């Protein structure tokens, strides 16, 4: 078991990668074996992620050096700097990888029947597993260039999956927009990597973080990295591609795309707090994140109110919810240089923002999955054409209600626990932000109630009399996420203590991240 945990970082990346290329081979023999391979590999990866995360929280940062005689030997004998590829997992990476493992598993199970009538299913699962690889790679890598490579792996497979249903024209358009945005973002990251390499002769994040000076070139690199990752997360005003891409993808992929945007958010946090942590002009960058976060919250929700397309409506809400996370973490960043304020409310604001990522990662894919179930049954995404569907889809209705209550922050559901943490801590920073947050939350509830009414309530419509219910594997996929919501609802304090405070501390304590590579005992 100990050996397994030592090797876990590379296994978590390698298993989906190997499974991705085994899928077409086994798919030629039997469809059932192929599906079993996908599910079993993802379950095993989820198990490894949980074991690794537990170990990281108890024993501290894990380092894995590729090609070294022992994984902990980051600097080869006779060298002064790390020359090998290093994976570095601290509590923050572990936190994001837990989310990614749960959602990708739920999405794969959901896909089993959601894409059952499509052609090219084997390729779908290959791409899905590649996307899982890319996501884990982004969360685990300790290296700026590998961050770019894994970002591109996740983007290329994500773009191909959005455009997977080629019989619709709009999927091609959404996929094209996604891949264009990803290509531009990827090139910006690569350019910034080049700038940093040119100055400090290293690609390793820890070594760069130790040496960084905050020269003009460094500031350009910071701006490029932040714009690239903000664009990928769909922050207003770079959000225009976001609803187009998210609303046309198969619902399981939309759920996973939400988490890839969280992975980009992770990369942005890593850049702000770890890479530039010592030198960053924290109040300025923090205020920029806060301002754009508030704008994102407000514009996202006001655009959502008018939408008639169920997936598009949920995509705008996804944009709006991302604003809460930028707000929470932005407040933490703004007071990073002030230990007193950081202890009073900064750490709590960051924990709140990170907690909201966890909650959002559970309820937003769940809501997208229910939207996909509606599309699966009715063949339309137009809310005006739906009605009375609660008669046909009892489970989906219940799950939709859970998701709605959670996203609107109704006590006692999990969305409330994270929002109250953000509201309380941000209130001490600036009360107006809390007021805006509450208004956005009310608008969210209003629009979800409206959508609930037009899709599920009312008498059964004649055109949907003959349709079959929602297939079982789709229900199972949704129930996994709903179980996550209920678990967080029941044990919020434990979640905060076990996962969120270690994750927030990992962001604040950049010294530990650097020492894990350079080998200096603190």
């Amino acid at each position, binding site marked *: 078991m100990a050996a397994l945990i030592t090797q876990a970082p590379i296994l978590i990346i390698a298993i989906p990668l190997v499974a991705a290329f085994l899928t077409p081979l086994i798919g030629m023999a039997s469809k059932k074996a192929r599906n079993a391979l996908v599910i079993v590999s993802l379950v095993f990866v989820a198990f490894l992620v949980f074991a690794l995360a537990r170990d990281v929280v108890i024993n501290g940062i894990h380092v894995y050096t590729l090609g070294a005689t022992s994984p902990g030997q980051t600097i080869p004998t006779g060298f002064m700097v790390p020359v090998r590829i290093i994976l570095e997992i601290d509590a923050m990476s572990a936190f994001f990888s837990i989310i990614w493992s749960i959602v990708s598993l739920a999405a794969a199970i959901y896909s089993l029947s959601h894409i059952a009538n499509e052609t090219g299913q084997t390729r779908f699962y290959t791409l899905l597993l590649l996307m899982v690889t890319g996501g884990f790679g982004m969360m685990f890598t300790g290296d700026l260039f590998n961050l770019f*490579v894994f970002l591109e792996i996740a983007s290329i497979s994500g773009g191909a999956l959005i455009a997977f249903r080629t019989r619709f024209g*709009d999927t091609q358009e959404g996929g094209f927009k996604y891949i264009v945005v990803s290509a531009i973002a990827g090139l910006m990251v690569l*350019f910034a990597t*080049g700038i940093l390499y040119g100055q400090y002769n290293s690609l390793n994040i820890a070594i760069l973080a130790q040496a960084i000076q905050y020269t003009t070139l460094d500031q350009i690199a910071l701006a490029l990295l932040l714009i690239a990752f903000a664009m990928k997360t769909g922050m207003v005003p770079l959000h225009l591609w976001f609803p187009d891409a998210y609303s046309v993808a198969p619902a399981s992929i939309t759920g996973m795309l939400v988490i890839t945007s969280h992975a980009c958010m992770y990369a942005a946090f890593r850049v702000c707090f770890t890479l530039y942590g010592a030198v960053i002009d924290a109040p300025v960058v923090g205020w920029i994140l806060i301002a754009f976060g508030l704008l994102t919250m407000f514009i996202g929700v006001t655009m959502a109110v*008018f*939408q008639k397309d169920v997936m598009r409506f949920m995509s705008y809400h996804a944009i709006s919810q991302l604003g809460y996370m930028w707000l929470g973490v932005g407040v933490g960043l703004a007071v990073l240089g002030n230990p007193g304020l950081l202890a009073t409310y900064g750490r709590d604001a960051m924990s709140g923002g990170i907690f909201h990522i966890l909650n959002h990662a559970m309820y937003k894919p769940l809501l997208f999955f229910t939207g996909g179930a509606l599309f699966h049954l009715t063949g339309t995404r137009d809310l005006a054409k739906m009605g009375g569907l609660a008669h046909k889809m009892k489970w989906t209705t219940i799950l939709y209600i859970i998701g709605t209550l959670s996203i609107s922050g109704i006590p006692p559901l999990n969305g409330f626990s994270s929002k109250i943490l953000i509201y309380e801590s941000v209130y001490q920073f600036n009360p107006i932000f809390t007021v805006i947050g509450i208004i956005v939350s009310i608008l969210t509830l209003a629009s979800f109630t409206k959508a609930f009414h037009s899709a599920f309530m009312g008498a059964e419509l004649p055109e949907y009399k003959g349709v079959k219910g929602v297939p079982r594997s789709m229900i199972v996929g949704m129930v996994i996420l709903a179980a996550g919501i209920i678990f967080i609802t029941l044990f919020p304090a434990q979640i905060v203590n076990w996962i969120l405070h270690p994750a927030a501390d990992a962001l604040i304590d950049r010294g530990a991240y650097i020492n894990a590579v350079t080998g200096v005992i603190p």
Partner: protein
Amino acid sequence: MEHMPLNFPFLAAALLAAVSFYIMIFKKNLIKLIMGIAMMSSAVNLFLVALGYRAGGNAPIYTDVPEGPMVLPVPQALTLTSIVINVAVLALMLTMVMQIYRHTGSLDSEKSRKLKG
């Protein structure tokens, strides 16, 4: 080589990037948009290779190298990887444009656009 100003390649990269941004923002044709992205990737690749160049340097092959400075091998490795990735991205974009044309009969980003609002 001694007389060539060393920042000349960087200026070329900046020029390429500026032209590609102009294309991406102002051109309506989707194929031209893809060309813009290809140019931007060339700009970044040129920047990376120029970064590792040392005046009068040799190719960094350790087994058979004459005396004198070597150019940095790492940016070249980065460039190779980046070229491979960009080939994949461009191929995927071109297939999608092909599909868009099949569905809408137009390559104009204003006319082939269905998703709005």
